[in-house]
């Protein structure tokens, strides 16, 4: 049997509390990241991702203690991202028990951070998050843009920073290759175009990136049902899917989602 495809719930954390409406039966405190992590872990999550959405200085201390508590109760890998700007930010998170750190804006600003982290902690600890949005202002003469032909207009995939709010002019396909060279162990690929739509993962983007690198890729943004996961796994070479909102209600638990994937012929850890 080949490597299993991974299903990764994502928890947004603000001031040490999970935000967004999470309603689990049997969970006493729906905002407690430690309790939720345990629940997801018991339900069969393959990994967890925690995103610190505010990442203020004071918040970092809270995050550190959260990481330590989470690491004490779960025995599956977890990644922490959001606001990691320096080697020492990353080190603190890793030394407190996270398996990987996810870095995004900082990678664009200081690409060397990826290499430094890789040298100290190993490639497997470094997840580079790439947020991508289609940019229709293409420049035919710019060799750095990989021009994609849309049904109406041409575009290129642009790397976005600051939570998807600011463009960089960097071509995402080139950037993915670059971060692989720099030492990334995985790419967490979020489609800003698809994010929040619940219309499914961005298959075109996911394929473009998966076909350009030889490191694992995690697709994120747009998931509204288990069928969207099936679609992502069947139509692309993606290794894992990340989802937030679909797990936030008791209706769709991880074990149900994973059994469904298995029924559809996706290699799943059950």
């Amino acid at each position, binding site marked *: 049997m*080949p490597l299993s495809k991974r299903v990764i719930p994502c928890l947004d954390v603000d001031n040490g509390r999970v935000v967004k409406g999470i309603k689990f039966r049997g969970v006493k405190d729906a905002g407690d990241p430690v309790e939720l992590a345990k629940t997801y872990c018991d339900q069969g999550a393959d990994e967890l991702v925690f995103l610190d959405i505010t990442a203020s200085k004071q918040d970092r201390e809270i995050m550190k203690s959260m990481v330590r508590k989470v690491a004490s109760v779960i025995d599956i890998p977890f990644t922490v991202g959001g606001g990691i700007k320096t080697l020492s930010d990353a080190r603190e998170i890793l030394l407190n028990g996270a*398996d990987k750190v996810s870095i995004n804006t900082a990678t664009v600003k200081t690409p060397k951070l990826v290499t430094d982290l890789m040298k100290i*902690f190993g490639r497997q600890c470094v997840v580079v998050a790439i947020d991508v949005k289609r940019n229709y202002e293409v420049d035919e003469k710019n060799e750095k843009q990989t021009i994609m032909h849309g049904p109406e207009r041409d575009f290129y995939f642009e790397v976005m920073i600051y939570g998807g709010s600011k463009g960089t002019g960097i071509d995402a396909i080139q950037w993915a290759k670059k971060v692989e060279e720099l030492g990334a162990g995985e790419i967490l690929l979020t489609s800003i175009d698809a994010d929040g739509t619940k219309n499914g993962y961005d298959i075109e983007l996911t394929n473009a990136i998966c076909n350009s690198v030889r490191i*694992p890729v995690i697709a994120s943004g747009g998931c509204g049902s288990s069928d969207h996961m099936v679609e992502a796994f069947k139509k692309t070479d993606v290794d894992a899917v990340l989802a937030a909102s679909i797990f936030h209600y008791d209706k769709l638990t991880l074990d149900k989602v994973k059994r469904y994937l298995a029924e559809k012929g996706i290699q799943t*850890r059950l």
Partner: protein
Amino acid sequence: MTKIAIFDFGAGNLFNLHQSLLGNGAHSVDIIRSLRQLGNYDGLVLPGVGNFDSAISSMQKDSGLLNAAVDKGMPILGICLGLEMLFDKSEEGILEGLKVLDGDVLMLPRMKVKVPHIGWNNLRIVKTGSNLLKGIPQDSWVYFVHSYHIEPQDDKLIAAVTEYGSKLPVVIERSNLFGTQFHPEKSGKIGAQIMKNFVNICEKN
């Protein structure tokens, strides 16, 4: 009282391993940076974080003590890099390995598979009566994160393999010397059972 030592290569994150040993039956777990006090412990774990050359340099001065412990039959578990170090050499580094076991460590074939090998893969147990894999069902899922793999000279060491591009040896066992290419401390209930088995072996020894 089962006392286990984790050797610290200086690369960080040993918290998970520490918790896992304590949660699976060890009474006390110390993180050590020298093998001189190894006699105080019932077992030793070589963790799976860091890179080859720096891990080797951190242990080189004590390699004689490690070999003596192996000869005495102390239970030793090498995880990922901690397993790779036991061999002669690795494509990851230029330094010689600890040469406790004969064989090399090679890069995974990037042309055939994605590297690193990250995620949950199946264990195919090939050795009957393995003490480390006692009670572990065939095809159990365990969590891998690695870019290199071991190539032991002696096939008889291999207790389990995993399919990733080719059949990779992922568990080795020679009397009380054990190694896993995957991370039992991150492999859910199956990993917990493997950790329990190791702690039991330490206790009985």
